[in-house]
């Protein structure tokens, strides 16, 4: 329990830091944010001053940050410059679509990567292992946005098996999820393969076999369980990348999600939206890794000490 509490406490400065980064974003833009927002609208100096007061930009920096934190505490992420709607509302109404794609890609990565790594790891240097290694080496190298286009060309244009754009059906999710998940499947294959080879050298595997434990049990109950810890940690660490990858895949397939929203906001310099996305994605990533650490700590008590002492 102290492990969980200590891990929780270590997260607080990181969370504060993320809010600080998001907050400073508006001040990193060269020039006056109020002028940036009103750019092209022929605003009078009075209007600019008025907007500055409205945004609280005339306050000292520390006061602005405290106000920002106060807003966040109430779940308020500010208002979009463009639509004047609540950023929190706009983000959360689009989030389910992005999270669905992230989850689907993660599922592909695990469903392909773990079995491939398992079989390759039990038979190192076999033909299967060589093929699996080649596939995973290629999987890391092919950019997902390119794989997505190749898959559309093959399965939508030529074979007409799957829809090319997202039509809301589960079939429309297949190409985006596979193209995004493939690279992470490759990472997992390499990882699990390496771990299984290492675990098979362990004394406990020998003793399990000596006790007459069937081979499938040695693999699934012993070697896989011990390999699962780095695999879970890796999935947690890659979560943020998969999430941003999902956002970009959405842009390719014209899915209405966080990605296309964020992309247009960046081109429009709609800073509150970018700030809100930074806070939501950053906090989500930290919390996911917190959960992962707690799970790993529960599975393997040895890691608790390592994680607790920085």
């Amino acid at each position, binding site marked *: 329990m102290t492990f969980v509490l200590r891990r929780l406490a270590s997260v607080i400065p990181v969370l504060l830091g993320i809010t600080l980064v998001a907050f400073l974003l508006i001040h990193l833009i060269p020039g006056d944010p109020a002028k940036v927002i009103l750019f092209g609208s022929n605003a009078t100096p009075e209007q600019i001053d008025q907007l500055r007061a409205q945004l609280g930009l005339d306050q000292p920096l520390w006061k602005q940050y405290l106000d920002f934190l106060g807003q966040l505490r109430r779940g308020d992420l500010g208002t979009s410059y463009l639509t004047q709607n609540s950023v929190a509302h706009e983000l959360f109404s689009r989030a389910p679509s992005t999270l669905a794609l992230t989850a689907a890609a993660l599922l592909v990565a695990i469903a392909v990567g773990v079995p491939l790594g398992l079989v390759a790891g039990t038979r190192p240097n076999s033909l299967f292992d060589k093929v699996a290694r080649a596939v995973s080496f290629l999987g890391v190298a092919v950019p997902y946005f390119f794989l997505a286009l190749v898959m559309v060309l093959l399965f939508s244009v030529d074979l007409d098996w799957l829809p090319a754009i997202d039509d809301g059906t589960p079939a429309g999710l297949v190409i985006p999820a596979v193209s995004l998940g493939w690279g992470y499947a490759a990472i997992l294959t390499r990882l699990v393969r390496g771990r299984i080879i290492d675990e098979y050298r362990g004394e406990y595997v020998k003793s399990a076999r000596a006790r007459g434990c069937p081979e499938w049990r040695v693999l699934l109950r012993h070697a896989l369980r011990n390999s699962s810890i780095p695999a879970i940690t890796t999935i947690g660490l890659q979560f943020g990348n998969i999430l941003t990858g999902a956002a*970009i895949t959405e842009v390719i397939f014209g899915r209405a999600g966080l990605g296309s929203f964020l992309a247009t906001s960046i081109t429009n310099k709609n800073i509150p939206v970018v700030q809100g*996305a930074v806070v939501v994605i*950053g906090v989500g990533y930290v919390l996911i890794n917190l959960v992962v650490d707690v799970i790993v700590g529960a599975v393997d008590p040895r890691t608790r000490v390592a994680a607790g002492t920085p």
Partner: protein
Amino acid sequence: MTSTPTSTLVIGPVVVLDKPSATTRARQVLGRIALAVTVVFFLALLITPGALAHVDPVATGDDILAAPSAGHLFGTDQLGRDVFSRTIHGAHPVLFASLLGVVLATVAGVAVGIAAGVAPRWLNAVVMRVVDVLLALPVLLIALMLIATAGSGVRSIVLAIGIAFTPGFARIVEGSVRTLRSAEFVQAAYVFGSTRLRTSLRHLLPNLVTEVVVLGSSAIGWAVLTATTLSFLGLGVLLPQPDWGSDLAAGATNLSTAWWLSTFPGLAITITILLANFSGDYLMTVLDPREATT
């Protein structure tokens, strides 16, 4: 390290290194070739793309959306521009941004990592918490944030990769410095009055070079992916200038009628990442055999 009163002989498990087998040796030769090809290829694409493709990559022609042929190896696009030439010339922004970005990140990461590693405890804590915050944000999000503030363009991508990759390098270097700091030769340097700066430059840095080279080279593949993702989103060079990412995106609209538009820039990115990863793996086996086995 505490001194023991009596000298004891500690016998650990003996690690017998296998003689390199035929496949290992073949792989080493292959790795050396890949590394050489990568270096030559990257340099040629960066310095003299004109020697590889004679046609102007932005010159339009009457031959619109022509399929690959002897005249146009990779075909032409909707404005009659030669796709082969665009693919060769499109390497420049990608390689420039990713290589310079990685160099920037390596230098910054090593500087921050060493500084934090030798700094007093409180300063180390402050710096490493900042690193933790940046590590908590996905690389692409940091890059997008920077481009949102600095505007799009190749220079912004260089900066974005440089800053987004720095915390990862700093984290690893700081860890190594902490291990090195307790090594006897570093302790001895301090005892003899060596300053923090001198110790860092004379004793810590030389011991980190191998690790840094391995880290940097293994990051190039990721940097290429990041750079092309950003230019794919239209945040890199402006059309009509050639660029793998933006050409790939532009070709997507004609995917069903002219497959070659997106395929060749896409293959170019894939081959570049493959070569970079292969060379990185090779450097790791040569420079740091312990790492390579895991």
